[in-house]
């Protein structure tokens, strides 16, 4: 398609940052990050099928401090994407479109993400000892 010199719509940098757009961007970013996590999940499962040694290796990699950092990031991303996804489902049902509600649900998503992530990791460390 010949785009010629036709004007493009204004890009992100001309807008004032608002919670609504930030959360929208994070939703897509966490989605892409979780896709990478899904590939690691596939590696972990396949290692278990490959044999005890391969699975031990996979467990050791994920238990390394860098592996734990990634897992923490993926936990955060998953809870965010899940909570904000529920927010999207409410919008799909036609609910929660008032600006005050949109901002409130946005902050609620952030709070729920932090609480759920911390609970999961405290639980994980509690079981691990």
């Amino acid at each position, binding site marked *: 398609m010949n785009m010629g010199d036709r004007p493009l719509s204004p890009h992100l940098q001309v807008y004032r940052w608002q919670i609504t757009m930030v959360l929208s961007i994070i939703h897509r970013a966490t989605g*892409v990050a979780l896709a990478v996590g*899904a590939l690691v999940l596939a590696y972990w*499962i396949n290692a278990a099928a490959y*044999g*005890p040694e391969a699975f031990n290796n996979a467990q050791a990699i994920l*238990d390394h401090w860098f592996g734990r950092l990634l897992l923490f990031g993926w936990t955060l991303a998953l809870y965010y994407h899940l909570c904000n*996804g529920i927010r999207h489902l409410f919008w799909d049902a036609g609910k929660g479109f008032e600006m005050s509600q949109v901002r409130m649900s946005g902050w609620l998503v952030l709070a729920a993400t932090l609480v759920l992530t911390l609970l999961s990791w405290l639980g*994980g460390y509690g079981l691990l000892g």
Partner: protein
Amino acid sequence: MSLKSDLGQVRGLGSAKEGTAHWWAQRVTAVALVPLSLWFVWSATTLVGFDQAGFKEWVNHAANLMLMILFVGSLFYHMQLGLQVVIEDYVHGEKTKVMSLVLNLFVAVFFGVSSIIALLKVAFGG
């Protein structure tokens, strides 16, 4: 004159080139993933430090095996749908876009199917 019918000539000329199937599938897999991913994260915290024998025993519980297969299936389906939209938004040029979309589909199906087969092998393999 053309052999194509009037309907055939206008089909696919809209900007979306599709109906609501993609949008709906993304929502349905999202709804399925709410309980499944909560269950998985909770399970994963209990699997910390397990060796392969422990994991095998865990997968041997029918409920765990079934939920894992449902989780992996919905996850890779949802992943393929989501990445498809990202590709359609950011990859310009028809050839690169179509190749990226096909690659995305192949990667999702490959890792999804291999994970499910791996789970079945852990559960039922000798």
